C-alpha cells in the first residue's frame, strides 16, 4: 500500500480505457480540420463526376456490374478505397510523429495513461476520422444519385470497418519503424495496387484467372465486396457477406492485438 496518503481527488472526471488518448486526437483535430476538410469534400466530387458520371455514361449496365449503372457500381468501391487510404495514412505519418517527431506518446506514458490506452485511443480515433471522411463521401455520393437501395446506409459502417482494419494493421507495423522512409513504399506498392485491383473500378472476375484468386486474398477486396453488396442491396447472399465481414473483422482484431505488442515494445524500454 502507499505509505503516504494520496491527496483527495478533486474534480475527478469520467474515464474509460483509451478515452484520454482519443481526446488528445480530437484536440489536435480541432486545430487542423480546416486543412483537410476541403480535400475530403472535393475528392469524392471529382472521382464520382469524372469516373462515375462521365466515364460511366459510356459504360452500359452490364450484368458484370450487377445490372446497375456504373456510377452505382463504382461509388461503394471508391468509398471503401477512400476508407482504406485514410486508415493507412492515419496509421503512418501522424502516428509516427507521436512516436518520434513530437514524442507525444512518451509524454502520455509518464502520466496514468498506459500503452493499452494509447492503442485503444488510437483505434477509436481511426473510427472517428474514417467515419468523418466516409460520411462526407456518403453524402456526396447520395447527392450524385449513387445509392438506389435503402440498405445503402449499411455501406457506411462497412466502409468504416474496412478503413479501421487497414489503419490499425499499418499502425502496428509503424510502431516497429525507426524511420519514415518505408511509408511511401507502402503506398506505391501496396495501397495503390490494392486500390486498382480489388474490385474498386471493375469486378475482379475481369482479371485473368491466375490473378483473380490473388484478389481473394487481398483484404480490400472483401471490404469492397461487403460495402458494395450492402450499397446496391439486391440478391444479398448472407453466407458470402458473413465471409467478407469475418475477413475484415479478423484483420481488425489481429491488427489490434499486434498493435498492443508493437506499441509496448516501442514505448516501454
Amino acid at each position, binding site marked *: *500500500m*502507499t*505509505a*503516504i*496518503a*494520496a*491527496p483527495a*481527488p*478533486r*474534480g*475527478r*472526471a469520467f*474515464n474509460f480505457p483509451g478515452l*484520454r488518448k482519443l*481526446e*488528445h486526437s480530437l*484536440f*489536435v483535430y480541432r*486545430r*487542423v480540420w480546416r486543412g483537410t476538410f476541403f480535400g475530403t469534400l472535393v475528392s469524392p466530387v471529382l472521382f464520382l463526376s469524372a469516373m462515375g458520371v462521365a466515364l460511366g455514361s459510356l459504360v452500359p449496365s452490364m450484368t458484370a456490374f450487377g445490372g446497375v449503372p456504373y456510377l452505382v457500381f463504382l461509388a461503394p468501391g471508391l468509398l471503401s478505397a477512400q476508407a482504406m487510404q485514410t486508415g493507412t495514412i492515419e496509421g503512418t505519418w501522424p502516428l509516427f510523429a507521436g512516436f518520434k517527431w*513530437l*514524442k*507525444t506518446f*512518451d*509524454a*502520455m*506514458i*509518464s*502520466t*496514468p*495513461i*498506459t500503452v493499452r490506452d494509447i492503442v485503444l485511443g488510437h483505434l477509436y480515433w481511426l473510427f472517428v476520422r474514417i467515419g468523418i471522411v466516409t460520411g462526407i463521401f456518403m453524402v456526396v455520393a447520395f447527392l450524385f444519385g449513387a445509392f438506389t437501395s435503402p440498405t445503402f446506409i449499411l455501406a457506411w459502417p462497412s466502409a468504416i470497418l474496412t478503413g479501421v482494419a487497414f489503419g490499425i494493421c499499418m499502425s502496428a507495423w509503424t510502431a516497429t519503424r525507426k524511420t519514415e522512409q518505408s511509408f511511401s513504399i507502402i503506398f506505391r506498392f501496396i495501397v495503390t495496387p490494392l486500390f486498382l485491383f480489388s474490385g474498386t473500378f471493375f469486378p475482379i472476375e475481369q482479371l485473368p484467372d491466375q490473378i483473380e484468386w490473388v484478389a481473394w486474398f487481398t483484404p480490400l477486396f472483401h471490404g469492397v465486396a461487403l460495402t458494395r453488396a450492402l450499397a446496391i442491396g439486391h440478391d444479398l447472399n448472407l453466407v458470402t457477406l458473413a465471409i467478407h465481414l469475418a475477413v475484415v473483422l479478423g484483420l481488425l482484431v489481429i491488427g489490434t492485438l499486434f498493435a498492443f505488442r508493437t506499441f509496448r515494445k516501442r*514505448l*516501454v*524500454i
Partner: protein
Amino acid sequence: MTSDAARQPLISARALTKKFGTFVAVDAIDFDVAPGEAFGFLGPNGAGKTSTMRMIGAVSPRSGGQLSVLGTDPDQHGARIRARLGVVPQEDTLDTELTVLENLLIYGRYFDLSYAEARIRALELLDFVQLSDRAKTLVEPLSGGMKRRLTIARSLINEPDLLLLDEPTTGLDPQARHLVWDRLYRLKQRGTTLVLTTHYMDEAEQLCDRLVVMDKAKIVAEGSPRALIEQYSTKEVLELRFPAGVQDTLDGQLDGLGDRVEKLPDRVLVYAADGEAAATAAHERGLVPETILVRRSSLEDVFLRLTGRSLIE
C-alpha cells in the same frame, strides 16, 4: 500526512539495475530520497542518470534490484505512481500543434481532471512560469527557455508529490537557465520534493540539498554539495595556464605546490587550502604562466578527483 509516514523515504532503491541487452546502463545502485528534499544525480552524459529517472518515473521496468516509489513498486502499480508524479523529460514532448493553454488542459485530462479544474490550475501555472501572455499562442514559435518553463508548468498540473527533472536546463542560455532555476527554487521552498539529473555542477550546487555522483552506471559518491567538496577537494583551487607547449616541460617543477596537482590538457589545477599562497609559491619557483586564477572548489573538482575526467567533455 502522519509523522510516521513523513520519515519514510519517497524513493528507495537497492541494487537497482537496468540492462539493455548486454549493456549495463545502471549497475546496482542504492539511494534514498526523503520527502521535501531536493536530490540530484550528477554525472556526465551516458552515466545512467536518465535510465534511473525513467525507472523512478514508472515508465521503464528495472532489470534487477528493488525500487520503491511513493511506497509502491513501480513495476506493479505504475499508473498509480505516475498519477502522483510530475515529469520534466530531457527532450521537450510538447504538442507543437496545440496552443500553450491547450497543452496544459489536455495534460490535465490525462490525470482525469475536469476541464474546469484543469483550466483553473493551468492559468495559475502559466502565471507561475511567467507565460500568461502566451496562453493562446501555438507552442512552436516559443524559445527553448519558454518551452522548458511550459514543460515545468505541465509537470505541475496534477499537484505532484514528487517532481522528476531530467536535465532541466540543458541547451538553455544563461538567462533562461536562471529563470528556470528561480522557479525550481520556489518549488523547493514550498516543500515539493525534487529529483533532478544534471551534468552542470553549478545547477547541482544551486538546487540540490543532497546528491549522488554517477559515473559509468555506478554511484561513486554521495552527500551534500558542501560535504562532497570538503571530502574530495580542497578549499581553493589555483588554475595555471601556460603558453602552448610549456606545460609538458614542467615535470617536477609543480610538485608540492598544493595538496594535489591535476594536469588537464589546457591547464594545471593546484588544489590548496590557500590559493593565493600557492600562486606566490609558483612565482618563487620561477614559473611564468600566461594566466593565473584562484577560485573556490566546485563539484567539477569533486568529479575530476573521483573519475579523473571532466563532467562535460
